[in-house]
């Protein structure tokens, strides 16, 4: 069975927590790329954001509860992405995924830049749209070519 899989880092089973604009868009992209995706959101209406051709699973439940993560089979996940509206919820889920369930790839979205350092210290990869957007805007305003972002 293993011989059939690619040698790249496994990214077949992906759990996305939070079906907001970012989460739903990401789910769609990944699903199009033939990945197996599970989207978790507290609110069923959020799943309306998913596209018609979304071919993954959805779970309507609160991801703060460990039972929800187990139901999504977090222990078998290759990737967990935390994109709820709340920074703190995202980093908690990310830590549970990484430290307790040893999910190989974990990313948390953060809105508040000042928290980024602490989470890097904890070994959690974070994505801060606020910083990325500000840098992109700065480059646009200052007329430079889009530089390599840190």
């Amino acid at each position, binding site marked *: 069975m293993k011989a059939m899989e690619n040698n790249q880092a496994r990214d077949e089973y992906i759990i996305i927590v939070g079906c907001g604009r970012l989460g739903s868009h990401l789910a769609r992209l990944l699903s199009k790329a033939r990945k197996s995706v599970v989207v978790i959101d507290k609110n069923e209406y959020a799943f309306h954001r998913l596209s018609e051709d979304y071919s993954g699973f959805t779970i309507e439940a609160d991801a*703060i509860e*460990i039972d929800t993560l187990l139901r999504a089979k977090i222990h078998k996940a290759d990737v967990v992405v935390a994109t709820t509206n709340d920074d*703190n919820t995202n*980093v908690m889920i990310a830590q*549970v995924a990484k430290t*307790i369930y040893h999910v190989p790839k974990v990313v948390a979205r953060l809105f508040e830049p*000042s*928290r980024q350092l602490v989470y890097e210290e904890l070994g959690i990869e974070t994505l801060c749209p606020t910083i990325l957007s500000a840098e992109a805007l700065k480059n646009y305003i200052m007329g430079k070519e889009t530089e390599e972002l840190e």
Partner: protein
Amino acid sequence: MNIIIVGGGKQLHFLTKSFVSKGYNVTIINHDAEYCKKLARMHQANIVHGDGTKPYILEDAGASYSEMVIALTKEDPHNLVICQIAEKMFKVKKTFAMVNDPMNIEIFKKLGVGNVICTADIISSFIEQKISIDDITNLFPIEEGKVAAMEIEINSDFPIIDTKLKDIEFPRDATIGCIIRGGQAVIPRGDTIVEEDDKLIILCLPKVQSEVLKTIRGRTD
């Protein structure tokens, strides 16, 4: 001692009152401006208005020179973040997090939070341990239920009355820590005689709890 408490509600109110009366220096962080004003009027404490999960707010509140940070917000993830930032960025020695979900107790501990308190868990342990209402009071759970602590009042019809402790056949994994007699605490010895109205404070392993009760009362109920 400098203590920072993040959160609101009645627990915060009574905790602050208690700490202040013991002479501790308390700083409260709360994100509701109106409530902060109210707190400033009610308590002899420093009040910081802001989101305690943001590092610079904790800094403003003096986390760098606080011995203890207590996270009492309504959301478990917020409490986790507060304690982690306090510990990692400000090197606060003692952090306490309150959690709503008992399953988070283990998780928070695994993620490095020193002390975790779950009200739901304490109450349910309490109720679970309760065996009989009249003569027995179960004390607080110790070490997540690994030790059972009971207080039993001795009635006149108990078989062990007027017997020396060393002559009573208690199970192995139980010990009488203390006897409250006439409002005084007595540390018992082998030849201490059990009297009516004595209150026995017993520590034992949960598995022998029923046996202990049977020995003392003559029945388990």
